[in-house]
Each structure stands twice: as structure tokens, then as C-alpha cells.
């Protein structure tokens, strides 16, 4: 830290008490003080005991960490939590419960859309974002717009089936 970046009242020092941040996660409000280098992914997993969101590549290349921020799907590994003060975050834990599965969770089971399951929370959050965006109207578009989620077991065909199924249930696209 150089003297030129010395702290004034606009700057939070790296050795300070952290930056005040309020986040609503799965409907629950959290008032936090965070170091600015904490990613949303690490905050969820390591501090808020929400390990459903997975750390895959940690570089925005695999999509395993996908969550919804103010309704938009994003890679939580590339989001510094302090930059999203006031945001509403939905993780896989907030989409459904064991007793009341989200339609995408049920469809992933029905269509055998996973093998090891590590990418699945990200796939499902991404699919929820995709349906919310409303831009995919065909299987080709689903595949293109899900390309940010890698599945190394190669369940892509069944993942696309599951998403198409839910979109058809919701009247968003004709089921092939």
C-alpha cells in the first residue's frame, strides 16, 4: 500500500473493520462487514453455511458457482461481495426445498440430467435465469444460452431435455 492511496473517509483500508454490506440471501437479510476481496461464492460457502453453490474452476469458466443476483444469473466466483451491497441473491438452497422441489429440480431428476451432480446447482440456477430472461425459444437457443455451464459427465442432452420440459410446462416453448 503506497502513501498515495492513503486512507481518507472515502476509502476502506485493507486492515480495517471491513466494509458494511447488506445482502438478502434466499429471502433472509444479512448485515455483514466484509473484507473487500471476499467473493460472493466464498461468502456463501464459508461464512453463511450455504454450500449448495459449488466452486468448480473459480475463474468464471465452468458455471458451477452460478447464482441469481437480483434475478440475473451470474458467476458468484467473479463477484466481490462488497460490490453488490443491497442485492437479492438466490442460491440453489433458495429455489426449492426437499419437500417442495423447484420444477427444474424435479425435471433434472425425471430426465436423469446429472451423474456426479457437482455442476447441477449451477445448471439449475442458470436454467432458472434462462427461463426468466425469456430469450430461448428453441432447443438450439437453450443449448447456446446454457453454454456457460460445463458438465464433465456429459449430461448435456438430458439437461436440455429437462429445461425444455419445464419451459413446455410453463408454456414458454413448444416441447419437441
Amino acid at each position, binding site marked *: *500500500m*503506497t502513501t*498515495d*492511496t492513503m*486512507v481518507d473517509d*472515502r*476509502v*476502506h*483500508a*485493507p*486492515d480495517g473493520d471491513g*466494509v458494511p454490506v447488506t445482502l438478502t440471501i434466499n429471502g433472509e437479510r444479512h448485515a455483514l462487514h466484509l*473484507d*473487500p*476481496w471476499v*467473493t460472493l461464492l466464498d461468502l456463501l460457502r464459508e461464512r453463511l453455511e450455504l454450500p449448495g453453490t459449488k466452486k468448480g474452476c*473459480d*475463474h*468464471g469458466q465452468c*458455471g458451477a458457482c*452460478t447464482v441469481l*443476483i437480483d434475478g*440475473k*444469473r*451470474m*458467476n458468484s*466466483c*467473479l*463477484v*466481490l461481495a*462488497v*460490490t453488490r*451491497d443491497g442485492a437479492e441473491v438466490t442460491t440453489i438452497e433458495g429455489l426449492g426445498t426437499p419437500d417442495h422441489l423447484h420444477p427444474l429440480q424435479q425435471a433434472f431428476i425425471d430426465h436423469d440430467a446429472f451423474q456426479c451432480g457437482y455442476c447441477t446447482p449451477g445448471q439449475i440456477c*442458470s436454467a432458472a*435465469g*434462462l427461463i426468466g*430472461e425469456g*430469450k430461448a425459444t*428453441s432447443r*438450439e*437457443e437453450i*443449448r*447456446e*444460452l*446454457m*453454454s*456457460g*455451464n460445463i458438465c464433465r459427465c456429459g449430461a448435456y442432452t438430458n439437461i436440455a431435455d429437462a429445461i425444455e420440459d419445464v419451459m413446455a410446462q410453463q408454456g414458454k416453448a413448444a416441447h419437441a
Partner: protein
Amino acid sequence: MNRFAYARPATIADAAQLLARPGAKAIAGGTNIVDLMKEGAETPDLLVDLRRLPLHDIRETDGGGLSLGALVPNADTAYDERVSERFPLLAHAILAGASAQLRNAATNGGNLNQRTRCYYFYDTATPCNKRAPGSGCGAIGGVNRIHAVLGTSEQCIATHPSDMCVALAALDARVKVHGPDGERVIDFGDYHRLPGDDPSKDNTLAAGEIVTAIDLDAFDCGHNWTYLKLRDRLSYAFALVSVAIALRIDGDTIVEARIALGGVAHKPWRVVEAEALLAGKAPDDALFATVADRILAGARGHGDNDFKVELARRVIVRALGQAVAGTPQTIADKRIA
């Protein structure tokens, strides 16, 4: 990631002051800088969060133009009806890049200011004149399949990775910036720079300057445009070569042509003299080949990327054919028309 100080200014003037400090870096969407900080390729002393600045809108300008706020996410820009109707080339170029998640987070200003994806720039165990000036270039004589074939220097053969910027170059956009000395406007072609003897500088922003908006004048090319991107996999990969084309055609005559290349240089590559060869002419494959040769004059591979010169030649000719026919390359259908 290194430890750093953090500020989230509410005004552009405050942000510019903070960014003028040595060791300060800007963050908005974070999709590139957070990644680079994890790798140790960026180690800011102070991170200036721009997200509270009032740059979140797309505004109408005179004559049917648009001013794209620097903090508007790439996805919101591409899906804005005014953008997709008036500048479909831009919308398609944006949607050809990255993934849906990244486009939701990444901002317009950040898209301009993202750094190269050169492997040596990212790998702090290797030399890189862009990351560590004077240390050398790992890519020259190294693994360089993704690297530049035009406008390179002895110090750097990195490419600018953006798709969006290739379309903005073809559309003659202007970049509005605000700095400690006030506002100025930079023509898009002058925004990014070639590596020359200082590859550490990607663009012509001065210390403390912030991109506030990208301005576009109306350019009606009807259906005579295309963004054709070739890459190693069918989606979610950077361009090996891409081309953005917008033509104004009257009857059988090309009135005006705009052609920009991505994936081949340190900045989107335009050669206006080559574009001028098309003005007043009827479309013709032989003419297209002449234009491609003129655009690629002086192109030179560095080993692994030798193929890019011939690939670019063919992509230009193919894309000109698409634009003339009014059949732009679609994103979901990977077959090249």
C-alpha cells in the same frame, strides 16, 4: 488475491480523483479484474468500485443514435430493443461473446477495458511485457495459437479479446470519458492502441479517466450486416478470427462498407482504404478477395497462429457474401451461411 483498499464513490468526480491515485484500479462487473487478481496478474492497492455512478442508462441521442451507459450490462445492451433494432450488428456481436452469466455481470465500459487473454499475460511465472514491462514476451517463440497477426511489435503479440468492440469499431462509435480535467470524446479507432514499445497500455485513457458512455450515430444498413466469428468450439470461446460487416447497398451497388476484424490484433482492425475499394462497386467474389488482401496486407503469423492469415482472408470473403445477401450469421445455428 492481494489485500487492497476499497472505495465506492457516488460521483464521477470523486471516482476520477480516486482512480488518479497510483495503484488504483476500477471495478464494475468484475468479471475480468477479479479473475486477473486471483491470478496475481493485477495487484491493485486501491479498488475503486464504479457501480454507484449514474451510468446505468441507454439514452436516445439526436438523429436516432444511442448513448450506451458505461455501467449497463452487456446482456441488457444486446437485448435492449433500440439496440437490437437499430444496431443488430452490435447486439449479435455482444451475444457471440462470453456466456449468459458473464454478459449479465460484465458492463459496457468493462468490455472496452478488459485485458488480453494471452496465456503469458495471465501466468506470472512467465515473462510478459504487458504485465511486467521489460521482462520479455513469452508468446513470441512460444505457444501462440490465439495471438495477433497484424499490428504486432517486437515486444507483444497479444490480441484484444472483445467481440463487442469489433462491432463498435465497424459502427464508428465514440467513447465518452471523464477525467480529472473534465470530459472528452475519443473516436473508437483511437481508443485502443497497438502495443508498440509500451504493451502495458491497452488504450489511450489517461490516469483517472473513466469511460462514461459509448455513443453511436444511426447507421442504417438494413439486413446487409453480419458478425461472423470462428473459434475452437461452437460457443463460449474467444474468436480465432471474427469479422463485423455493415454495408449500405443501393440496388446492385455498394454505397459504403464498414469492415472490422477481431482476434487478429491488439485492437479491432479496420482498413478504411480497403473498405473504399467496395464503394460504388457491384458485389463480386473477386473484388471481395482483393479487399481481404488489402485488409490483411502485412499480416504475419508467429508459428502456431500462421493459419489465421488465410482463415481471416476466407472469413472476410464469406462474411461479405452474407452481408450482401442480407443473411447475417445467426448465433444459435452454428452452420455458416
